[in-house]
C-alpha cells in the first residue's frame, strides 16, 4: 500500500521512519525527540523502533546540536535534527550560516553536508512569544542552504524524504499550524525541491504563497470565486531553490499578483518574490504586485495574533487593490 490518510505530523514521522529504514546512516536527534517523540510527536516511536543510536535526545543546546550534526555529516551520516521551535534555532545561527551553508563551498565540494534541520515555524496556534517566528528569510538569504516548507501532508512526506536524500543541507520549515491537517498521502519519493505547484487554477490574478499561507490563499480564492473573481494559487514549496519558471508563468497568465506570507514583510522572502517577479514580468503586469504579510513587529501575543496574521479579508483587500480598471 503506498497511500495512507495522514496528518502532516504523521506524514513527517512516516518520512523519517521510511528514510531510517532504507538508509542506516540516517540519524535523528535533538531536544525531546527520543522517548517523548518531540513536542509535536513528529519523532514518535523512532527511538523504540531504531534504538538510541539512531534517534536520541541531546543536551539542551541548539548550536551544539547543529554543530555535532555537521561533524556527523562530515563523517558518513545523514543527520536530521530538530529545533524545538523557530526562535530556538537562533542559538544555532552561527553554525548554520558559517558552517552548514558554507562547508561544501569552502572545501571545493570535498566535504558535503547531507543534513536536515527541521524547524516547526510560524504562528496561528496561540503560542507565546518566541514560539511563532517566521524565520525563513534568515535562511533564504544565506547562500548554500536549501529552504523548503510544505503546505500539505503529501508534500511534507515527499519534501522530507527528498531533503534527507539530498547531498546538500536543507532547512526544513514545518508550518506548525498545519501539523494536524489530514489528507491521503502517497508514500513514494518525488522530486519537489525547487518546484512550485499551481494549487488552484484561476485567470484574474495570482496568489503566491508558501507553507502556512497556502491554505489562507486557497480560502481567499474560494471566497473570491463566489464573488466572481477567479484567483490562481501558487504554492512555492521550495523557497531556495526558487522556481522562477512556474511562478513567472503563473503571473504572466493573469497579469496581477499578490504575495501572501506570515513573516514581517521588510527584507523578506515576500520582498524577493515581488522583486524577482517584477524584474522578469514587468511588462505583463497590469498593476504592481501587492504583499500581504505580517506587520513589521515582533510576533504578537496569542490574543492579538488574529490582528497580525494575513487572513482571507486582507488578501481580498489586496486583490481589490490591483487596479481593476474595468471593475
Amino acid at each position, binding site marked *: 500500500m503506498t497511500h495512507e490518510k495522514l496528518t502532516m505530523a504523521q506524514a513527517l514521522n512516516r518520512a523519517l521512519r521510511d528514510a531510517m529504514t532504507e538508509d542506516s546512516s540516517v540519524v535523528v536527534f535533538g531536544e525531546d525527540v*527520543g*522517548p*517523548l517523540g518531540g513536542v509535536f510527536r513528529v519523532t514518535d516511536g523512532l527511538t523504540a523502533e531504531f534504538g538510541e543510536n539512531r534517534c536520541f*535526545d541531546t543536551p*539542551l543546546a541548539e548550536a551544539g546540536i547543529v554543530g555535532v550534526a555537521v561533524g556527523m555529516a562530515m563523517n558518513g551520516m545523514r543527520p536530521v535534527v530538530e529545533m524545538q521551535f523557530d526562535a530556538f534555532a537562533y542559538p544555532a545561527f552561527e553554525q548554520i550560516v558559517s558552517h552548514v551553508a558554507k562547508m561544501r563551498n569552502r572545501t571545493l565540494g570535498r566535504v558535503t553536508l547531507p543534513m536536515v534541520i527541521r524547524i516547526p515555524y510560524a504562528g496561528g496556534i496561540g503560542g507565546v512569544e518566541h514560539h511563532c517566528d517566521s524565520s525563513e528569510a534568515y535562511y533564504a538569504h544565506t547562500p548554500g542552504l536549501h529552504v523548503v516548507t510544505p503546505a500539505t501532508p503529501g508534500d511534507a512526506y515527499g519534501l522530507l524524504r527528498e531533503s534527507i536524500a539530498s547531498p546538500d543541507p536543507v532547512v526544513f520549515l514545518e508550518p506548525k499550524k498545519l501539523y494536524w491537517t489530514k489528507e491521503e498521502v502517497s508514500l513514494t519519493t518525488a522530486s519537489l525541491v525547487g518546484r512550485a505547484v499551481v494549487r488552484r487554477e484561476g485567470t484574474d490574478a495570482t496568489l503566491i504563497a508558501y507553507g502556512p499561507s497556502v491554505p489562507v490563499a486557497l480560502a481567499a480564492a474560494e471566497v473570491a470565486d463566489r464573488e466572481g473573481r477567479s484567483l490562481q494559487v501558487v504554492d512555492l514549496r521550495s523557497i531556495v531553490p526558487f522556481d522562477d519558471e512556474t511562478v513567472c508563468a503563473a503571473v504572466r497568465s493573469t497579469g496581477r499578483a499578490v504575495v501572501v506570507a506570515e513573516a514581517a514583510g521588510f527584507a523578506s522572502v515576500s520582498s524577493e518574490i515581488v522583486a524577482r517577479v517584477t524584474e522578469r514580468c514587468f511588462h505583463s503586469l497590469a498593476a504592481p504586485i501587492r504583499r500581504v504579510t505580517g506587520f*513589521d*513587529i515582533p510576533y504578537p*501575543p*496569542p490574543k492579538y495574533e488574529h490582528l497580525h496574521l494575513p487572513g482571507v479579508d486582507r488578501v481580498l483587500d489586496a486583490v481589490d487593490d490591483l487596479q481593476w480598471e474595468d471593475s
Partner: protein
Amino acid sequence: MTGDAHHLLPSGTPVTLIGIDGHPVAGSGRVFPSDAELRQALAALITARRLNDQAHALVRQGRLAVYPSSHGQEACQVAAAQVLDDGDWLFPTYRDTVAAVGRGVDPVEALTLLKGDWHCGWDPYEHRVAPHATPLATQLPHAVGVAHAARLRGEPTVAMALCGDGGTSEGDFHEALNFAAVLRAPVVFLIQNNEYAISVPLARQTAAPSLAYKGIGYGIPGERVDGNDVAALLTVLGEAVARARAGEGPQLVEAHTYRMQAHTNADDATRYRTSAEVDAWLERDPITRLERHLNLPASDVSEMREAADRVAAHLRDGLNRDISPTPAQLFEYVYATPTSQLREQQAQLADEHAREGAAG
C-alpha cells in the same frame, strides 16, 4: 593562582538543615534561619503552592493558555525571593512565577503572558523583577549586566538569576558565568535542578558529578543545597547574596529538587518517567517538611492558608476578566517613535477595523 582552588568546589552532598521528618539535621555547621524567617517562608510556601494549584486549575478552565508549574519546587523560589533586598534584582524563567510573586509582583500581572495577553505583564522596575525569559539561559547575561551596571555606580545591588538544569547546557549559561566571574559582578546563579528538561533526564544533560561543579571552571564557588529544604536554601542563598554584595564576585548554587507535575499541562510526563519515581519525592515535599519542623498551632497555619486563598481568589478574579486587544497596541511599543512604515501599517489595520465595524 591554583593553590586555593578547592574551596570553589561544592560539598559532596547537598546542604540540608531540616530532615524529611522535620528534625534539624546535625552537623551541617551552617547557620540555622530564625523562626521568624521560617514562619515567613512557610506563609510564602503555602501561598506559592496555592498559586501553582490555582493556575493549574485555570488552565483546565481555559482561562490560562499554559502553565509551567513549580509544584514541588516552591522552596527554591520562595527562598530566592526572600533573601533579596528591595534594591536587588530577580531574573526568573517561565517556571518562576511564584518567585516573581514573592518579590511583590501581582499574580494576575505575573500570568499575563501565559494568559495570552501582552508578553510581560508587570513593570520590571517596580519590584526589580526582569520579564521572564523563555529562550533558555538568555536572561543570565542580562543579570550580569544589571549587576555590573549597579556595581559601576557603587550601588549595593545583587542580581539573583534563575535557571533550570537543562538551561545549563546552553552557551549563554557559560558566557554569563564567565563574564560575571571576570567582571566580579554580584550575581547569584541559582540552578533549580529538577531532574528534567521537559522529557530529558539529567543524565542526558550532563556527565558532571553535579551541576555545582561547573563553578570552579569559572573561578566561581559552587554550592549544593537540598532544594526542598527551605531552611537550607535560606542559609545557602542568603550567604551567597551576602558574599556577592560584599564584593566577592558571583556565586553558583545548585538546588536539588523535583518537578512534581508535567512540564506544562500540554506535556505527557508518563512518556518519560514512572509514577513511582514521582511518588518517591512526595515525602520530601518542602511544605510538609517545614510544617513538621515548625509545628505551629493549627490556627497559625489556617491563617496562612486563608491568606493564600485570598491571593488565589484574586488570581481567579483577575484571570476571569476578558482581554480586549486593541490594534494600536501592536505598533505602539516597537520603537520609541514609530517608523513611517509602522505608521502606515497601523493606519491600514485601523482602516480594516473601521470598515469591519461599518460592515458589521
